[in-house]
């Protein structure tokens, strides 16, 4: 750098004259005098070994975009399993790209009133979709929402066992397994090999007076609808346990909200509601309950309430029960509190405002139609069959056992046709043999599905 000082655009006081002036003001002769408090022995003795900086913006863009180009593009994808490509209205991206929201953080309500109102609207709109009254600010993702729901139930009931499906989405299941350690025992409920939904008899044997909660997925990880959900809820409640339903919120235009069939908690991941795939960076967890202080006092994240101001007719917002949180009570708070997904919550609010009741119904119907069409069409391919015959939403399991080919081999062949096949289940659910989880949203067209079917016929 030939001894010339760089003035960094992001560091205004790197201008040598300004820096000199300020150092003088704080009575420091040299930059390193600022670090008197750090003993010599704890300082880095050498320069960091980092790549030479890319100082200008156009070169940076070329560098990063150049690397990312290696991803390739133009694939037709049928992947779901907790993250799926849904329709994102342009207004969603317009709002979440606004600098005011993009660069706001956790500040108080006055100067950030708009952000607080948007959060409140997120909770309110989700409340309508879920038919429940209480939501906190979002959690990290659906897995965290499920894990925290279970911990909330354990605190409420004083019980230390929970029941969850064995065939839970592993992205959720692995989070739960770690998060309930060391004090809560997980009992796994088997699914019926024929229907793919929970085996009620086996489930009943797992529930006891020690059970804090029974958690089910609806739709399930394998896409199926738990037709006996209400009965499962009764079983849980009569044992004094909470009934937690992990749901896909985009299904709720056509599927009954869990509260209607007895859920005391509804939780899940809101990525489908206006968020791009973002390589998994579009996830966000939600937990909803009824209006009951027993539940409200157990939430871990911040709750924002609406309240009158001193000006007649004006709304303000404020923290509710702040001392529940770790910010208010450190280790005595409910679990630990962390900021998560505020901008995505605002985006969900925009999405649900645009959709309205009709949009959610229409989306649900299109997904039902397209996914059923796909299942039907694909099971006509020789060597392919639909593994479970019961009703499903958005996702379904294709069984390739009769084809004599592995899912891995099939997916490799499809990829050559620039098609990304379903998620390979052969390792995580070995009893299903060579099976794969396919996802068809409102974004897939008939032509897409026919193209997949054609490619599959070629491969098999």
């Amino acid at each position: 750098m030939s001894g010339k000082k760089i003035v960094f655009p992001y560091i205004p006081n790197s201008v040598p004259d300004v820096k000199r002036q300020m150092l003088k003001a704080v009575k420091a002769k040299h930059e390193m005098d600022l670090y008197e408090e750090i003993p010599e022995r704890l300082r880095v003795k050498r320069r960091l070994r980092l790549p030479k900086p890319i100082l200008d913006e156009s070169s940076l863009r070329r560098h990063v975009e150049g690397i990312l180009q290696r991803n390739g593009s133009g694939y037709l994808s049928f992947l779901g399993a907790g993250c799926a490509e849904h329709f994102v209205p342009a207004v969603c991206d317009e709002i979440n790209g606004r600098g005011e929201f993009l660069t706001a953080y956790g500040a108080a309500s006055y100067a950030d009133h708009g952000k607080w109102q948007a959060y409140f609207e997120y909770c309110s709109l989700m409340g309508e979709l879920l038919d429940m009254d209480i939501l906190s600010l979002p959690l990290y993702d659906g897995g965290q929402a499920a894990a925290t729901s279970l911990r909330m139930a354990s605190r409420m009931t004083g019980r230390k066992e929970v029941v969850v499906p064995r065939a839970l989405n592993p992205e959720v299941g692995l989070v739960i397994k770690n998060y309930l350690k060391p004090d809560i025992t997980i009992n796994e409920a088997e699914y019926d090999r024929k229907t793919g939904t929970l085996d009620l008899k086996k489930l009943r044997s797992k529930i006891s007076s020690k059970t804090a909660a029974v958690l089910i997925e609806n739709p399930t990880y394998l896409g199926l609808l738990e037709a006996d959900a209400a009965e499962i809820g009764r079983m849980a409640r009569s044992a004094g346990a909470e009934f937690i339903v992990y749901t896909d919120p985009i299904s709720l235009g056509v599927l009954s909200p869990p509260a209607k069939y007895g859920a005391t908690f509804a939780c899940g991941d809101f990525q489908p509601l206006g968020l791009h795939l973002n390589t998994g960076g579009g996830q966000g967890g939600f937990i909803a309950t009824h209006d009951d202080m027993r539940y409200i006092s157990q939430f871990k994240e911040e709750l924002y309430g609406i309240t009158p101001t001193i000006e007649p007719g004006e709304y303000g917002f404020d923290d509710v029960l702040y001392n529940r949180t770790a910010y208010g009570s450190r280790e005595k708070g409910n679990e630990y509190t962390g900021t998560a997904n505020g901008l995505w919550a605002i985006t969900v609010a925009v999405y649900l405002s645009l959709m309205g009741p009709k949009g959610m119904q229409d989306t649900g119907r299109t997904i039902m139609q397209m996914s059923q069409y796909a299942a039907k069409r694909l099971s006509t391919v020789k060597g392919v069959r639909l593994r479970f015959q019961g009703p499903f939403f958005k996702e379904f399991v294709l069984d390739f056992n009769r084809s004599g080919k592995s899912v891995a081999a099939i997916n490799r062949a499809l990829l050559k046709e620039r098609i990304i096949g379903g998620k390979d289940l052969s390792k995580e659910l070995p009893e299903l043999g060579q099976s794969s989880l396919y996802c068809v949203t409102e974004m897939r067209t008939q032509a897409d599905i026919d193209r997949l079917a054609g490619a599959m016929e070629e491969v098999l």
Partner: protein
Amino acid sequence: MGRNPKTLLRKFHEAKWDEQIILEMSVPGERGILVREAEPEVRREVGSGVSAIPPGLRRRSKPGLPEVNQARVLRHFLHLSQETLGTDVNIDIGEGTCTMKYSPKVHEQISNRNPAIRDVHPLQPTETMQGTLEIVYKLEQLLKEVSGMDRFTFQPSGGAQGVYTSAAMIRAYHESRGDTQRTEAITTMFSHPCDAAAPATAGYKIITIMPDKDGYADIEAFKGALSKRTAGIFITNPEDTGIYNPLIDEFVKAAHEVGALCHTDQANANGILGIARARDAGFDLSQFNLHKTFSVPHQSTGGSVGALGCTAELAEFLPVPQVKLAGEKYYLDYNAPRSIGKVRSFIGNVPSLVKAYAWIMQLGDEGLRQVAICSVLNNNYLMQKLQQIPGVVVRYAPGRRRLEQVRYSWEKLYEDTGVGTEDVRRRMADFGVQSYSTSHLPWIVPQPFTIEPTESFSKDDLDEYVAILTQISKEAYENPEFVKGAPYNSVVHRNSSASMDDPVNIAVTWRQFVKKGLDKRVRRSATKRS
């Protein structure tokens, strides 16, 4: 017009739209967006689709969402954005401990807005994600050098989750050695609350070390707390007071002697980039908050990453999958039998990783050092100016330098005038700057406020900020009731009730608000106004 050159104050009024709640704006029949319909042939084939849903699971009544046309939805949320002061639009140095800095605009375009990130499914075959994995892998290499650690995970999606992940790894480490007697974790009072709460969530008893009269964590008390029961220590350094613990390596050494592992929460690392490294002080684990120190935008509390680093010895406990390189191919490694599993789905907040990578690549070694130096310089410059404001007190270690932030106190102002920190905080909103952070609870420093002027703000910005607090202090001494009545030029007036903890008043959704009849109370008072 413009900023008064003498006082440095500007005439400000924040946007005030008197915006209704979106649920009040419904016009039956209006549509915000239309959704693609299935093709006619598809419909012929499968019918309505909905009929396949078992009757017990079919939605009977449509969701009570509002019906609003698209332009009005857009306008509504743009109004709300205008009623928000992000870092992009203000001298945002008051949110101490949060490291509010400039987030380069180009980073949005090359990450979230780039189809190569935006439209990629996290479970895609790795051959279709080579570019993304390369950036994640390279970011790990960069952070290894900045921290001295051997391995990183980017799954934790927030600093607190990073600390939690660390606690879970510490638990797995002791378990793997059959060491079951370790039930305690130690932290200090001026470490972030998550350093107590996260290990508590992982099942540990928490022992807190209180500050001595100079604000330093009491090392003798710390040594007294260590035992064979200690699983780990969780310490922020510099602490939330901005004071660097000069004995930090002795803390680590003493903890290691009893067999405990040591985590440092580097949420406050902005002032020490390239100056001091966690590993050099002996720490086994440490997390950087990429949304703070590494310029990832704060996203209204979103998109966060608690990048957790650890020693080679602890790498086998990291969450899965880990991004690895074999020859020239990057892959996701799930084969880790002693891993704690997962703390978050997939890889984490990938777009944020691209931003942090880009930021480090733009700055290099010299740039990172300048970030640190200028943030500490800004902080000490500001401390000197703020200490001269009547009513401001800096607690602890007088005459000693602080690193990147300072926890100040309005104790004197409060005793002199009755105007407390919450009052000043509201009044700030009248000058076009964000309300500052006070402190997490409990308030060890009375009437606290915590200021962190990062490298992103110029001397001129700092001078304007000083002018604002000087003006408020003057107002407090001259007319305390005026300050207590603030804000006046913000979006809304002060809330009428002091507390929202009474179940009667709790309304966190519109439907709850309406069910309790609280909306009528607001509307009634509105009619009174007109």
